[in-house]
């Protein structure tokens, strides 16, 4: 069959398929229901694939071949796209999948938590015994500004404020903390080095600040401030770290897979941790901005709420989604 006859014979199919892919790529309102899609579209797409194969085998002109290639490619994209119901997926994620992911990767979680809490606790203890040690972690200016922030004589609590509204601080905490979390994850690609660095660096700084403030007698202001949000925030950083370590493990020890395939698999497996960690940091920012900084509740209430939140977070991560867990 010569090319022109071929074109004339099947041109209708091609315009039909083009109409379909156009309709399918339009926003939701113009979208056709699934029944109609299931009927004509796949059959049409497979026919055009056949035409493309024929056109190549018969050495029809390059222009015709690339036209058919374009049509088939567009069809392929719509037929094999994945669509998920978003809201039920989100619900299922937090009720089940996220805590499960944290438990399934408990080894990474343990290492990440060790890398974060190890330096943190070590420095608290070390500075208690040797106060000058704080200056080997933080420079004098940061120490001074930390002291100014948590001076018991202050009216408000918390980090240095560029604006005095809680809402503004909420924005700042999200901007800053989620950024740190994302970098902790991404840094894992470099054979885990980035994640290890961010985890232990943050652990060391937090430990130094906590140790120093307790040591100079600002302990009460500091601990009542961090009591509530520290649960979400520290665990979230550990979660991001664990996700980063997973990436790093894929790079270091791909096993029987190609290195990049191993990394791709690890990245996909780690993504629930990234989603969950982000949610944790948003909650932490909210608590930090609107509760931690408030001065009206008695100190004991703030400690109690902090303890309660730590407990709830741990129960959530350890107990949720236990039913028919794989």
């Amino acid at each position, binding site marked *: 069959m010569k090319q022109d006859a071929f074109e004339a014979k099947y041109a209708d199919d091609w315009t039909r398929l083009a109409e379909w892919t156009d309709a399918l*790529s339009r926003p939701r309102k113009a979208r056709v229901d699934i029944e109609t899609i299931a009927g004509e579209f796949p059959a049409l797409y497979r026919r055009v694939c056949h035409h493309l194969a024929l056109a190549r085998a018969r050495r029809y002109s390059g222009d015709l071949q690339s036209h058919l290639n374009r049509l088939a*490619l567009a069809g392929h994209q719509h037929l094999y*796209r994945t669509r998920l119901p978003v809201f039920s997926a989100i619900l299922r994620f937090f009720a089940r999948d996220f805590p499960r992911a944290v438990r399934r990767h408990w080894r990474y979680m343990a290492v990440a938590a060790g890398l974060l809490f190890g330096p943190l606790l070590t420095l608290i203890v070390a500075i208690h015994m040797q106060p000058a040690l704080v200056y080997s972690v933080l420079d004098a200016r940061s120490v001074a500004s930390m002291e100014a922030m948590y001076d018991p004589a202050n009216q408000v609590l918390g980090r240095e404020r560029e604006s005095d509204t809680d809402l503004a601080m909420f924005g700042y905490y999200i901007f800053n903390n989620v950024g740190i979390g994302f970098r902790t994850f991404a840094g894992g690609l470099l054979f885990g080095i980035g994640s290890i660095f961010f985890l232990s660096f943050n652990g060391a700084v937090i430990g130094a600040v906590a140790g120093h403030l307790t040591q100079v007698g600002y302990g009460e202001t500091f601990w009542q401030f961090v009591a509530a949000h520290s649960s979400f925030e520290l665990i979230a950083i550990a979660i991001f770290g664990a996700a980063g370590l997973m990436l790093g493990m894929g790079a270091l020890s791909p096993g029987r897979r190609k290195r990049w395939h191993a990394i791709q698999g690890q*990245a996909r497996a780690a993504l629930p941790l990234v989603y969950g960690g982000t949610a944790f940091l948003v909650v932490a920012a909210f608590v930090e901005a609107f509760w931690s900084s408030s001065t009206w509740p008695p100190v004991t209430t703030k400690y109690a709420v902090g303890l309660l939140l730590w407990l709830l977070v741990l129960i959530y991560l350890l107990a949720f989604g236990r039913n028919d867990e794989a």
Partner: protein
Amino acid sequence: MQLDTTQNLATPEGVELRLPVAGLAPRALAWLVDALIKAAVIFTATVTRGVMGGTSFALYLIVLFFLLWFYNVLFEVFRHGATPGKSAVGIRVVNANGTPVGWTGSLIRNLIRNVDLIPGVYLFGFASLMLTEKFQRLGDLAASTIVVYDTKNVERKSAFGIAPEPLRIPLTLEEQQTIVSFAERTPELTGDRAAELASIVEPVLPGADAQKLCAYASWLTGREQRT
């Protein structure tokens, strides 16, 4: 030797689809356009913040946060893999298997962007782009995505509507194809260039100018059957 950047994609339908992968230049250009858009938004936000004062600071920071981390992700997921910059240049992100990029792929590739831009000037990304067959930066490799030219709006070349003229000399298939693709390209060529190209076949087909070759092409693609 293959010179173009086309990647073949095996489908369940048993036919190979061809994806034109985009290289450094279009991607850098797209990045630049996006960077300008982001800069414009940040500038506007900064100015409005100055006007509105106090409480808008939170909004400002959240805008900044989304711009920094989710600008690419949201556009790639909801606008068929293309940020405004990419669609201006005519490229978009797809999964390496040709399907549209989703949350998973887009999020991974854009979070790993942090590693690509080490040490602040995309050196890692650049090296990775140059060393991989499909021009993937590290984020693309981790997410298994590629950046391809958007061929959706490409038009078919207009048919060479010239009366067919039969070829009297037997030509190989390859030679026939050359003549047909020449005819398809003539509308894009200047008259002089077309004549110059046509003169190459002079020794084989005496007296064949560009016009004549298009007529042969008409005949080769089977136009005589309709007249």
